[in-house]
């Protein structure tokens, strides 16, 4: 039986690897086969044709696309992300600090959202059909139906404009004390937490409710177990796999949310860097940021799948 699990996990990892290659292919061709010549963009409209041709040679732009793709991939694997067009700095240098900032934001959000969402999701399933459950369900539907920027703008309106508790923009370089840290991170983290938790609550609740419909839970009910005991002792251990799975899947929502949140709060993270790169058409920067996001997303989805396999007692 153990062998079956191992082979499933290995198979899933292989699929992830193949997917990664297809994704990098897609990212490269979406960005590299742009209309508009990179050399012309770099040198400006007034460049002489000779200068443009020289730069094209130097950048290997005349090679077939597939060769450029392979060279780009080889660079990525070796940690060479290329040089930013906009300011001629290695992309790796631009990304390093930004990456830490984004991970900080994501980590803070996850550390708040996961316990919050699990508590709400499990208790909502425990008291299914009650007023409490309905409020949680309607609130989560409401939150996942609205765009992230609306949650962000409402949070700014409430906490910065009406209550005046927090600054409307976040600047991490002003942080000197823990209090400053709280103030600058509060708004972005609250916004992201809303979106991530709403997803996670829905999925957690569904996972627990599904287990509650099984015969052995009914048996426990007939034997006279209380509702909390029914959920916590009988249903929860079996719903654990799907719950962890849903946590990983919901965290992948962070990747989309962070793009909006970093832009609206002017937060110096990778997503803001990428949005700026898109407006300056800085291709190496866009490609690298896109690959980081895809890698993170793929890692989370694969982790979710593997956890689902590992937690299935029929396979263990």
């Amino acid at each position, binding site marked *: 039986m153990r062998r079956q699990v191992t082979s499933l996990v290995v198979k899933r990892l292989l699929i992830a690897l*193949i*997917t990664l290659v*297809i*994704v990098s292919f*897609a*990212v490269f061709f*979406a*960005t590299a*086969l*742009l*209309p508009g010549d990179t050399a012309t963009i770099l040198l400006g409209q007034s460049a002489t044709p000779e200068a443009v041709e020289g730069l094209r040679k130097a950048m290997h732009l005349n090679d077939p696309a597939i060769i450029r793709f392979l060279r780009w991939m080889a660079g990525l694997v070796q940690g060479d992300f290329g040089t930013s067009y906009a300011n001629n700095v290695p992309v790796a240098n631009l990304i390093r600090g930004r990456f830490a900032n984004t991970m900080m934001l994501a980590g803070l959000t996850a550390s708040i959202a996961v316990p919050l969402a699990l508590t709400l999701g499990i208790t909502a399933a425990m008291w299914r*059909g009650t007023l409490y*459950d*309905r409020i949680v*369900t309607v609130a989560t*539907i*409401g939150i*996942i*139906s*609205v*765009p*992230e*920027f*609306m949650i962000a*703008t*409402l949070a*700014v*309106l409430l906490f*910065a*404009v*009406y209550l005046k508790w927090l600054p*409307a923009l976040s600047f991490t370089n002003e942080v000197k004390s823990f209090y400053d840290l709280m103030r600058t991170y509060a708004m972005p983290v609250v916004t992201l937490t809303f979106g991530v938790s709403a997803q996670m609550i829905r999925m957690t609740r569904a996972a627990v409710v599904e287990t509650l419909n099984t015969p052995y839970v009914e048996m426990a009910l007939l034997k006279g177990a209380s509702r909390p005991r029914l959920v916590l002792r009988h249903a929860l251990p079996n719903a654990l796999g799907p719950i962890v799975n849903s946590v990983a899947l919901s965290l*992948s929502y962070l*990747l*989309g949310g962070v*793009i*909006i949140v970093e*832009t*609206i709060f002017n937060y110096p993270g990778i997503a803001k860097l*990428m*949005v700026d790169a*898109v*407006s300056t*058409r800085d291709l190496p920067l*866009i490609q690298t940021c*896109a690959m980081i*996001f*895809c890698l993170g*997303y*793929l890692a989370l*989805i694969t982790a979710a799948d593997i956890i689902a396999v590992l937690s299935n007692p029929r396979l263990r």
Partner: protein
Amino acid sequence: MTRATLSGRFGMRLGYRFNLIGMSALSIILLWSGVALFAPQIIPHSVGEIVDTDYFGPMSRDLWFGSDYLGRDIFSRILMGARYTLGISLAAVSIACFSGVALGMTAAVAGGWFDSMLSRFLDALNSIPSKLFGLVVVAAVGSSIPALIATLSVIYTPGAYRFARALAVNVNTMDFMAVARIRGEGLPYLIASEILPNILGPVLADLGLRFVFIVLLLSGLSFLGLGVQPPYADWGALVRENIGGLPFGAPAVIFPSLAIASLTISVNLLIDNLPSRIRDRSAE
């Protein structure tokens, strides 16, 4: 009776009848569709006309939702914005679902290497976060309205494919499929006359959900300045234009957001309250 209808939304489904929440959600959707169709006839002010001497003006009897950052009427701009938000999303969702469902049914019926290659490829596309995909493609091809529609439909085709394929695989194992195959029917007949009628309900419910995703993504892109470009403005672009009014709590920021929320929440609630006959098969 009213109470029973209300609780029907969470517990038992009421057969073919729409309950109260479903009805109100449907009427909001119809209202916005009407607005999108007849916007040029019903707007009180021209969208480009500067009607207020002040910018970010408050709500008044003349300017119902206040004025924007140039002093234009926000109410009229929202009514016109409905055309772009609804139109682009509807076009994109139709293309995405048509191609996704057609490919999904074909893959389920054909099977073999066609099925596994297509599934592998579309799953890979699906593992690019949608906002990121939008950003990269818009950076590449620019954000004209046809390009936006094409991008959005490409992003949501894999999801529609996966959903339709999962349903079609189940139908494919039925006896009537075997009979049709023995009769010698070709692929177009099999997918159009045998499979499609059996998966139509869930596919339409899925189309509604995908519509919501597309509205949200389009608004998100427009909010980032990569979606609908001036002089046109959809609801996301209206929020972006007027984000400067946020520190003053200007109605110009709030109402476009509310318009998006009213549409997306209504579609979600309508689908949640569809008669169970339509929805149940989508639970598979």
